């Protein structure tokens, strides 16, 4: 158990360091000079040189890399030369927004997927089960942003039930927060829910064909009772795997949804920073996303051992 955790932590560290090098080099490889963008048209070579020196982008790459990377473990992302502000507090603001969005969307998606997926599996030959399968198939095919645009057109512009876009922090005005977060969460959750429904369905169907479930039925348990007592825990392992992968995908999906709904999350910060070649901010946001993904994997790995005693014993 402890060894498994240690191995995972070591993997975390190596992946993280490799990611810092990759993202750093990638940002240097794409065309576009931050000083040129800051000065815009009419910039003269002298002004450009002065601005590059001020930004520190004229220093050797290796110096720039360590200057940035060594601050990361301490939560110091440096100062953005575009906004002239410390990056860490800005990223922290945006992370909260994105996490609220993603976590709410995942909860709603699971609330959709678990009951409907189970239903579709148990009643996979009845019209209800086929309908759920069909709808989930449709949902999988719809991209997040399209769901978002459709929701805006119908519920905000058409019916006027919700604001079309924008964000209010929950602490500031909860009612306004709820009305503004509803559509983006729904946009993310409907697609995500459809994907997960399919996984829940196949996981439950697989469990239902297992010998132990037949044994449970033979003991006299009803179909649902047998499934709840003996099936769901087993079915939850593949679902957990998919959920963790989808959670990472959801964070990326949120980038687009944040754009559609004008939400000041990590995604919009990332896009703006790429556009301005705000290298340090891009690197930092990407590293936060990498960290979140790695942490999810770490947590999921621990959850496996909780759910499945065999994994605990094997390690």
């Amino acid at each position, binding site marked *: 158990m402890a060894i498994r955790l240690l191995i995972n932590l070591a993997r975390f560290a190596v992946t993280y360091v490799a990611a810092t090098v990759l993202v750093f080099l990638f940002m240097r490889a794409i065309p576009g000079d931050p000083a*040129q963008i800051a000065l815009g048209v009419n910039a003269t070579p002298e002004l450009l040189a002065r601005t590059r020196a001020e930004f520190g982008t004229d220093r050797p790459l290796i110096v720039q890399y360590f200057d940035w990377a060594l601050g990361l473990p301490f939560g110091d992302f440096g100062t953005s030369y575009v906004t002239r*502000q410390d990056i860490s507090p800005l990223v922290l603001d945006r992370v909260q927004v994105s996490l609220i969005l993603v976590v709410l969307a995942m909860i709603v998606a699971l609330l959709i997927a678990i009951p409907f997926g189970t239903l579709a599996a148990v009643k996979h030959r009845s019209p209800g089960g086929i309908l759920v399968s069909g709808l989930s198939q449709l949902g999988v095919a719809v991209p997040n942003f399209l769901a978002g645009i459709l929701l805006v057109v119908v519920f905000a512009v058409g019916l006027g039930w919700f604001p079309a876009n924008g*964000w209010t922090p929950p602490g500031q005005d909860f009612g306004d927060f709820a009305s503004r977060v509803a559509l983006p969460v729904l946009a993310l959750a409907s697609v995500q829910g459809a994907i997960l429904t399919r996984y829940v369905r196949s996981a439950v169907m697989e469990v239902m064909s297992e010998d132990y479930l037949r044994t449970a039925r033979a003991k006299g348990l009803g179909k649902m009772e047998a499934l709840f007592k003996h099936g769901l825990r087993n079915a939850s392992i593949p679902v957990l795997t998919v959920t963790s992968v989808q959670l990472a995908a959801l964070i990326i999906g949120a980038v687009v949804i944040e754009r559609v709904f004008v939400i000041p999350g990590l995604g919009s910060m990332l896009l703006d920073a790429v556009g301005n070649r705000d290298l340090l901010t891009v690197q930092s946001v990407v590293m936060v996303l990498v960290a979140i993904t790695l942490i999810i994997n770490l947590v999921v790995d621990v959850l496996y051992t909780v759910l499945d005693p065999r994994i605990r014993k094997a390690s």
Partner: protein
Amino acid sequence: MRSSKKFGLAAAVLAGALSLTACNAGAGSTASQEAQQDSVTVALTGEPVNLDFTTTAGAAIPQALMSNVYEGLVEIDQEGKIQPLLAESWELSEDRKTYTFKLREGANFSNGEPFTAEDVKFSIERVQSDEWVSSLKSKMDVVDAVNVLSDTEVEVVLKQPSNAWLFDMGTLVGAMFDPSGVDDLANTAIGTGPYAIEAWNRGQSIELAARDDYWGEKPGVETATLRYFADAVATTNALQSGDVDVVYNMQAPELLSSFESNDKYQVLEGTSNGEIVLSMNNKEAPFDDVRVRQAVMHAIDRQAVVDTAWNGYGTVVGGPVPPTDPYFEDLNSVYPYDPAKAKELLKEAGAENLDITFTVPTRPYATAVSEIVVSQLAEVGINAKIESAEFPAVWLDQVFTKHDYQMSVVLAVESRDVLTMFNNPDYYLGHDNSKIKDPAAKADAADEAGYVEGMKDVVRTIVDDAAADVLFIFPNIVVADANVTGIPANSVTEALDLTNIGWK
């Protein structure tokens, strides 16, 4: 049995949560209606990255701050005329080199400091110092000395007479700063204007609150909020759902029809300083040959470009000067649409069946324009291959800095920028300025009538030379709630002056 109860519970929770949020949406909109008369929310695309236009280029910063937070000695009105602002009046000496400004009394900065002649000296000299990194600083090169005569009188001595300088004083280089208010320009803006920044929610909005101690008339509303959106569709959605009152400088004319037919909204079409410049690299083949450039001018039906690419919004003027500039004239007759003539010129130049690369920045106007330009060029035997360039990063690097392009198209937004574009052979257009250099200098130094006539000549020379094809003057499209008044429809400087915006 147990299972169906659980499903029911989950469904009930979900439905409850949704209805709760729907109720709250309703509650929010009534509250905003009550506050409506005292505030206005303007939707814009492109948020400032910081608040310091002395070191950061781009239209977003001065758009938010000039006229609202910062003021100059003079301002440019909706017709492009110079009007007094922090200077009540001024006199120009006989030799046209010395301006004596009489300053307004009782004006102060939002940090409480009074506005005096010392601030004028400080602000002008700061533009000339290393503190200003923005390239616009060159507009202040002509100033020789600033002399403080008294608290309310200041004298500015120019190296040579200049008509352009006083106009520029009404743009961002003329912004007046307080010496104690420039420590953190990127994050705090301290000016003499009617508004001060109340809050900046990064990624969302800038909130401006009317100042109680403003020297002039109070603005039409207490709070003006500038809300920033990634694209035009999001702005009109927000307008339709009541989140914003005005969409300024709207970038998607195809969305306008639904607003034009609805009494709840007003659609304004003003002019702007922005020229859609179809650039041809004057220094490189094939466009180093004036006949090839002239052929392009004849090959393009500019009115058709506006009609197709921008739904007919925008003004075709045939030259690089917007109608609000004093030396404007309609030059459409110089290169009428004439594909036969174009083919003839290409034949003369030995440039038949020409293959060129057309570098198109990733901006809505550019992609819209490029398609029709390509098809019109094809008709005269110029095969343009579109190559997309991310804007601003890649376009600035490739086209603007390295001049690595043949043809491109960009919206040039700077006010009175005809000389910036064409009077500098090192500029990306690469226009040979030998014929206009002296006449331009002479015009700037002449009296007002001489300036206008001189500049007209300069502009005609530029157009004769087919230095670039200005397809049309970019419209300033505004869509707003029908009850909002005082919206500046024309965009003659970088500023979006919010002071007159109010409600019926």
